[in-house]
């Protein structure tokens, strides 16, 4: 049977070398007052369409809109929560990529959906299935500044209640797959119990959507097998930056799914398809082909467009070969 393929989330915004970079130009024009918000929306939609078609052409089974509207994974959500203002730039984990730090200055409340319109648009144009992605509450809290709650647990749970509302709205809008990104959990094993409680706040609101807890940029070994007690349908691991994750997945309970990040989303060197085939076969022998989905190791935005595309092509070719 065919091995399913997916992506982790983001996709390069720049065009193929030599083509027009419309989004960048539109944003520049907007800042000069030479373009309107509706021009920006058109540029976002055109790019989302391109990114979805590109993933589909590469043969990816479950796609995202590439997060083409987002500067980072936190800001769009923080902007839709009362209680947050947007702070300065900080490094996004160990990448030469930056995010704006949300600063909590008052009680956190939901102010309407942050990602639902973008999801609906993606779903309306995609031929394949579309995954919604939201930040995890622990990652959100740890990368933000809390100037209001002064209690980490209270802060995390307040964020999780808003994200639960977002997830509920995504499901209502037709999301079959919701991925919750918790990369910061890898460096915060002390937050494991809190994270489980916070994730429960989100997933207990959902009836039909299949949920995945995603970590990337490192090993989940420090979290121990208790991670697998989280109330989600599956787990995503980065097998490139976290080689120990190969051991971690051996503990995966049979009823849980694995999303295995096996092509390097942070380096341009192309993986050999034969190597990917062998790796997928090994993974399938551990967790079973039915429970396995393969993906890049993280969002693909760290790569130039051509490299991201080439990596997806090889990933899905390898997955097809294993399945045939």
């Amino acid at each position: 049977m065919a091995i399913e393929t997916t992506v982790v989330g983001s996709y390069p915004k720049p065009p193929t070398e030599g083509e027009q970079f419309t989004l960048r130009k539109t944003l520049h024009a907007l800042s000069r007052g030479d373009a309107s918000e509706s021009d920006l929306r058109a540029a976002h939609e055109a790019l989302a369409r391109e990114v979805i078609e590109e993933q589909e052409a590469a043969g990816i089974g479950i796609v995202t809109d590439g997060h083409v509207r987002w500067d980072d994974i936190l800001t769009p959500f923080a902007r839709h929560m009362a209680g947050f203002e947007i702070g300065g730039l900080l490094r996004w984990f160990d990448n030469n990529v930056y995010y704006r730090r949300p600063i909590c200055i008052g009680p956190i409340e939901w102010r309407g959906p942050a990602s639902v319109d973008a999801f609906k648009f993606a779903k309306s144009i995609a031929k394949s299935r579309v995954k919604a992605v939201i930040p995890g509450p622990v990652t959100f809290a740890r990368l933000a500044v809390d100037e209001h709650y002064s209690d980490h647990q209270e802060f995390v749970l307040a964020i999780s209640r808003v994200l639960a509302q977002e997830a509920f709205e995504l499901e209502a809008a037709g999301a079959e797959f919701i991925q919750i990104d918790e990369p910061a959990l890898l460096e915060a094993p002390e937050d494991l119990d809190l994270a489980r409680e916070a994730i429960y706040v989100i997933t207990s609101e959902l009836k039909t959507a299949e949920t995945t807890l995603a970590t990337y940029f490192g090993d989940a070994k420090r979290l121990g097998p208790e991670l697998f007690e989280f109330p989600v349908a599956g787990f995503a691991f980065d097998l490139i930056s976290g080689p120990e994750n190969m051991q971690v997945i051996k503990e995966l309970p049979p009823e849980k799914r694995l999303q295995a990040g096996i092509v390097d989303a942070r380096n341009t060197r192309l993986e050999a398809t034969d190597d990917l085939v062998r790796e997928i076969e090994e993974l399938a022998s551990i967790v079973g082909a039915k429970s396995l989905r393969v993906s890049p190791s993280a969002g693909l935005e760290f790569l130039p467009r051509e490299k991201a595309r080439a990596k997806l092509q090889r990933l899905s070719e390898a997955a097809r070969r294993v399945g045939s």
Partner: protein
Amino acid sequence: MTENQLPGPGLWTTSVGSFPKPDYITKARSQFARGEIDREALRELERKATREWVEFQDSIGTDLIVDGEMYRGDMVAFFAEEMPGLEIGGLVRSYGNRYYRKPIATGPVGRDHPMTVDWWEYAQSLTDKPVKGMLTGPYTICDWSFNEHYSSRRDFVLDLAKVVRDEALDLERAGARFIQIDEPAASTRMDELDLVIESMNIVTEPLQAHTITHICYGKFHEAYPKMLDIPVDQIDLEFANSEYSLLEEFSDNPFTKFIGLGISDVHTHDIEPVDAMAEGIRRSLKHIPAERMFVDPDCGLKTRTVEEAKEKLSNIKKAVDVVRAEL
């Protein structure tokens, strides 16, 4: 070290490196990229802009001058373009609507000609004040490049260190008494801080010049005090954008080197008032003596407008004058 000492009781003003490019440079760079003007025409304009920035720094009384990097697009790509073994890759995003061409190591890196010496000589010819030699450190070049050649990051970094060392030695031979080797990525991965130290030692070991490194905030609170083991005379850090939170660390573990004290946030259009800057310097003087303190913006100013950058630099100088009068 003493022969490199600047005159006066300390609290010298300087800059971290880059300044905004005037519109005529931005325009000329696009024209050059499209093949509409030749390299020499672009160079002539880059020299003009360099001269304007050196004259500006002189006019406000800056003690240690930078050339402003009018001829560099990006602090890693500039060196990558000049070095065998590195190729310029496709566009990747750093944040918001900002993108850069991330280099790719496709073979062993090396150096077949000096990369910055002629620009240093030109800038130094324009002023009697010392001009800093400005290099990007080996760890940061590795960290901000893709790697399709080396089997380990360490091998890549140590090869780069030899290249940067040879460039630094050529700057020193040309007369540079202050050489800055920027390692903004040094505070990224704590398990590689030893590699930062090892590679910096390759670069600075043979140098007589006053050596400086600029490190971005990152995981500062984890990297300190080990950061003090990086073999340079001075570390330049950003204080303004973290509201001087770094100073708390210095109470427990005294800062033992010369410091570059960043007192103006480079990511905001706001021009910090002189009073606030002066207060920041006073707070910092409780931890580090004036004779070991250089004062500058948090980081390179290239993302600000020319006017904003000039106002920030002018206010820094005024704040320093206020505090100097109290010493």
